[in-house]
């Protein structure tokens, strides 16, 4: 009664190594020749992949820092310490500080419901979660303008009560929350589905209540996936341009986030300052990648 081995479809580094890498290792030497492509083909493929990476990923990143520091460290620091830039940093942090925890809670709740329970409308919910990914960010921004803007559905009521959403901080937060909504849920759903329900069922039979069940059984099993989702969510929250641009109104020192600030400075030919501010976002991306790498490794172990 043979139980089939769970087969692994995961690609390993070995799949990407040139065939020589197998010599004396896994594959018998005699077979290497059969697997080997002509040298020209190999170098062409590897070379073009490398060229692509350098051209589209590495060079732009290097250019950001080069341009930012071209006029010296003092100019760089001055550009970032400038009040409008500082205000943009504060607003970006604020938006992320609100959007990320909210979407973490929403995402975990949605993923938990979808992965661990059967209910009517599950497919609809899954589709809705993906909506922000499939809608252009500019459109999502416009929807908020239509809803909350001066001419929008709720505009008159908001004005009566002295509330300002569009061209103000609440609008930026709303747009950020919307755009970053799927990240945590999307990361967790497949993970939780793959883990199945047995551990939760075991916990329920042992008498665990909802919160204990989540805190002691579900959460520990998803924590690295959750961290991964939160990091991606945060990166997008801080970097979002389109949706935020529509609802922001670009009021300097008040409704400009970092990406908007970069655009304004660039349009005003303040290249050093623009790249200095941009370098902050680039740094954020690098930190994100590093933390993501760590989380991924823990997730795999």
């Amino acid at each position, binding site marked *: *009664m043979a*139980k*089939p081995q*769970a*087969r*692994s*479809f*995961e690609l390993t580094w070995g799949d990407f190594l040139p065939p020589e890498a197998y010599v004396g290792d896994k594959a018998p030497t005699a077979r290497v020749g059969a697997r080997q492509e002509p040298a020209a083909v190999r170098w062409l493929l590897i070379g073009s992949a490398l060229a692509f990476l350098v051209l589209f990923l590495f060079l732009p990143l290097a250019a950001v820092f080069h341009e930012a520091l071209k006029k010296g460290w003092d100019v760089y620091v001055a550009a970032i310490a400038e009040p409008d830039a500082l205000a943009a940093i504060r607003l970006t942090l604020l938006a992320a500080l609100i959007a990320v925890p909210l979407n973490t809670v929403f995402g975990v709740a949605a993923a938990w419901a979808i992965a661990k329970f*059967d209910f009517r409308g599950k497919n609809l919910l899954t589709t809705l979660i993906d909506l922000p990914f499939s809608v252009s960010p500019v459109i999502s921004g416009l929807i908020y303008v239509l809803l909350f803007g001066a001419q929008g559905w709720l505009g008159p009521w908001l004005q009566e009560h002295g509330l300002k959403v569009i061209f103000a901080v609440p609008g930026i937060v709303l747009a950020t929350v919307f755009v970053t909504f799927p990240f945590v849920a999307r990361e967790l759903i497949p*993970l939780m*589905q*793959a*883990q*199945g*329900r*047995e*551990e939760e*069922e*075991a*916990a*329920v*039979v*042992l*008498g*665990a*209540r909802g919160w*204990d069940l989540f805190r*002691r*059984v579900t959460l*520990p*099993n998803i924590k690295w996936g959750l961290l991964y989702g939160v990091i991606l969510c945060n990166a997008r929250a801080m970097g979002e341009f389109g949706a935020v641009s529509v609802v922001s109104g670009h009021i300097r020192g008040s409704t400009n986030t970092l990406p908007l600030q970069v655009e304004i400075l660039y349009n005003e030919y303040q290249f050093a300052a623009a790249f200095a501010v941009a370098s902050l976002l680039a740094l954020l991306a690098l930190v994100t990648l590093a933390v993501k790498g760590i989380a991924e490794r823990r*997730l*795999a*172990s």
Partner: protein
Amino acid sequence: MSIQVQGVTKTFGEFVALDDVSLDIASGELVALLSPSGSGKTTLLRVIAGLEWPDAGRVLFHGEDATDTHARERRVGFVFQHYALFRHMTVSENVAFGLRVRPRPVRPSEAAIRAKVQDLLELVQLGWLGERYPHQLSGGQRQRIALARALAVEPRVLLLDEPFGALDANVRKQLRRWLRRLHDEVHVTTVFVTHDQDEAMAVADRVVIMNHGRLEQVGTPEQVRAAPATEFVRAFLADDDGDASGIIPSWQPEPSFSSRTAHAMSSGRVPLLG
């Protein structure tokens, strides 16, 4: 604690997993649900545990209707086919879980929990494994830890889903004898699911043979052997290797949807999840 199953029917979409099943299990009895895979026995076990709701019929514990009682409140011990040990907890923490999640007023003290866990680990003869993690254990050890964890909450009923299904033949036979001895010692009403007739006959006081969601015959191993009630039972028992897995591969999950997905997923677990 006696168990009565009265007219239980359960369907999953078009599939009838249980078809008007009635069964009385006496207090302290050790009963085997025996049938080829896909005959609804795991579903019956899950209905008794409260993990599945019947479409019709009732489940009574000790004469009291438990059909609407949440699985959490039923005080059953359930040992899952793939054990479902909490992978991020040590063996001791796994066993202690049921005690730790009790509401504060009825939760034993830390010292009492620790003593109880040690007792249970001794009972399953694995007292020295407390600080290990599930992935560091062999299949047979995991099985016994799962049992200790289920016993920790002093269940009124112990339910085991293919308890030896995932183990190799030697360990299987050992654990079988061991389960019988354990039952004689603890004397908790026990129901286990198996597709292996040798196993059922060797361990159980009574055997319940199922086919396509219906009961074919209920009786002691001797009764069933001596007088098969239906053609199905006769053919099933005559099957030489005593293992119905020849009919349907035994690793196929039982036809309860949620457990089916869970099993399929846990057996085909993506390496990503370790």
